[in-house]
């Protein structure tokens, strides 16, 4: 069930889809679970699955998944709500005429047998749908995104042609506007008690943390730590190479080849256009910090002047009693 896909389709996933799925899951979970700090929920609740449709564009060998919407799963017929799907599809067509139904999504730790039924039922809309699976269990050791994309392939197993799911690799694709909103979500602080919110939002948090680790979110602190890490690793490599040169360590040719290929990639960072853009960005950031310092100074000055006026103002207020809470 888990071999890698042999079709050469490249999948591009937008963060909006991931956020939608995790949001859907969290909402349903919090609505069904009741108050989070009730002690009755000692045992693990039955795994909750949410379902929905993913839409996007397929250009040649590239499949780009832009958006998603939710669907109700009918337990009795083991199928998705077809009428609703068609209605939603028409609505989306009006706004995004390019988008097609590319497949469906669900939550869980791995693809199940029953999912194949749903998968087959979608085949009349799209002959080769994709299945996006989100793993909502919190696993901090895992550094990757808890999302897997499955395709269906016809394999011969036990002399019977069967459709099975195969994993596909994917990459994250984003637009500028999405970056801002993901950045915003990444900095959400729960306004009520912290623990309650984080308990309801584990998949959201994981996804956001992983997105940050994927370092295309324009947040400065992770970038700073990433650069620090890069710096320390280069230092280690440098030290190692020096030791190799001196003869303290045995020469390892494969490593040397990798290092030389890495070095040969560097000149792309030296062009004039890069300098231009880099300096412009640098200047922008400096301006922002300058502005911040100015605001800071004016705020301190404001406080100082207020205090001065309270202390030394000769025209005191009449009556002396003002609202001072």
């Amino acid at each position, binding site marked *: 069930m888990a071999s890698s896909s042999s079709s050469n389709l490249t999948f591009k996933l937008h963060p909006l889809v991931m956020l939608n799925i995790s949001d859907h899951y969290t909402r349903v979970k919090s609505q069904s679970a009741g108050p989070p700090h009730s002690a009755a929920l000692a045992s693990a609740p039955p795994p909750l699955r949410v379902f929905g449709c993913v839409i996007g564009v397929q250009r040649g060998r590239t499949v780009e998944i832009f958006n998603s919407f939710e669907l109700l799963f009918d337990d009795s017929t083991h199928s998705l709500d077809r009428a609703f799907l068609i209605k939603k599809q028409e609505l989306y067509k009006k706004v995004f005429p390019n988008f097609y139904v590319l497949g469906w999504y669900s939550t869980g730790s791995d693809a199940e047998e029953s999912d194949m039924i749903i998968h087959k039922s979608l085949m009349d809309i799209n002959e080769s749908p994709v299945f996006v699976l989100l793993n909502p269990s919190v696993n901090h050791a895992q550094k990757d995104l808890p999302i897997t994309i499955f395709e269906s392939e016809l394999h011969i197993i036990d002399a019977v042609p069967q459709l099975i799911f195969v994993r596909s690799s994917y990459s994250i694709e984003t637009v500028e506007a999405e970056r801002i909103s993901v950045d915003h979500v990444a900095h959400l602080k729960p306004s009520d008690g912290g623990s309650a919110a984080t308990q309801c939002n584990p998949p959201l948090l994981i996804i956001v943390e992983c997105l940050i680790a994927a370092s295309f979110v324009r947040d400065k602190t992770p970038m700073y730590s990433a650069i620090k890490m890069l710096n320390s690793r280069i230092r280690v490599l440098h030290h190692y190479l020096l030791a190799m040169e001196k003869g303290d360590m045995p020469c390892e040719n494969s490593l040397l080849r990798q290092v030389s290929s890495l070095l040969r990639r560097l000149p792309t960072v030296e062009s004039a256009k890069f300098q231009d853009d880099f*300096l412009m960005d640098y200047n922008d950031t400096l301006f922002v910090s300058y502005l911040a310092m100015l605001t800071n100074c004016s705020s301190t000055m404001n406080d*100082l002047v207020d205090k001065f006026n309270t202390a030394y103002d000769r025209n005191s207020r009449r009556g002396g009693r003002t609202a001072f809470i």
Partner: protein
Amino acid sequence: MNLNMNSAESIVAQIQALSTTPRDISQLHTFLKQSDDLIRSESTRLASSLTQLDPSIHSLGFLYILDACTSGPAAKEQASEHVLTIARFVNACSTEQIRLAPEKFVSICKRLKDEVMMLAAPIRGIAPMLTAIRKLQSSTEHLTTLHPDFLLLCLSAKCYKKGLSILEDDIYEVDQPRDLLLYGYYGGMICIGQKRFRKALELLHNVVTAPLSNMSAITIEAYKKYILVSLIHLGQFNATVPKYASTVAQRNLKNFTQPYLELAVSYGTGKVTELETCIRQHREKFQNDNNFGLVRQVVSSIYKRNIQRLTQTYLTLSLEGIANSVQLNSPKEAEMHVLQMIQDGEIYATINQKDGMVRFLEDPEQYKSCAMIERIDSSIERMMTLSKKLTAADELMSCDPAYLSRVGKERAPRLDFDDYDPVPQKFTM
């Protein structure tokens, strides 16, 4: 007679003996303070014994004797040697010792200034005065009484660059308010002389808005120059005195500076002829105030202002068109003006001499260069030091008893005394 000789020698002996360790020096200081009158009466005799003392080691004693010698009315012949002695002393003296008696030091430096002015050679006093300031200041942010005298010497000697070096320092501490007024006024004049109008505007603005209890002539003069410089540099003048100026200033400044305000109004119309009639009307007053040079600069700046206004309306304009709208006499003159402005960096344009057209361009600064990075970086650093100073001042203010008593007075009547500690009104040990 003998007694007098003895006492003079004993003073010199004491000075020589007690000028080594800091404890000795403070002892010497008290001794000198007590024998101040004696020193004054013995000044002529002690003057000859100055040669026995070394200014760098016996600075304090030297200072007292020198002060006594130079405090009487000085004749012209003596002035020159006084100047030499004082200058030599100032260059050689030790900083810690003179800081023990700052008033005496200030008075001999003022003496120096008077004497060089009397000798009509102010340039001789500039270098010693500069060293004196640097030795008297506790830090570069400290404004001493010597600053305005130094600036006055620079102005009289027309050595503006030396004065500028002092003006570059930001001031955070002031000894006496009158120093600040004079410093701002003279500093403004020096900057005008060097054509650094922005700094001049800043200094004059400080003088105009300084806290005052009574009207001061310095403020009035400064306000007049402020009007003129703001017309030259900014092209406009806001006739309302800023709100944070003292109430005395706000009420009275307008009465004393009427002709200048009228000048500002006629400048605002943008018509050169009106400006010139206004100037002709008040010509005498301007000349009496020694401001006529500035007024002439105002006239030349009105052409610049008008040309700058043209850049906002036209993309390209012929030289004749410029000459007509700015009321210049010929296209040649217009070309000269525009060329000068381009060189000064006041507008961005290209002149096509073949068909006499001028094309106005945008500011080509892309903010992409390393030089810009360094500029912003230095500004951020300055801002950070300023922020630290402001926070320190804020904390100082929060501990101020006047402030605390006011705050406590407002709070105490409304709340239970059990719940909150009343703010201590007086802290008695």
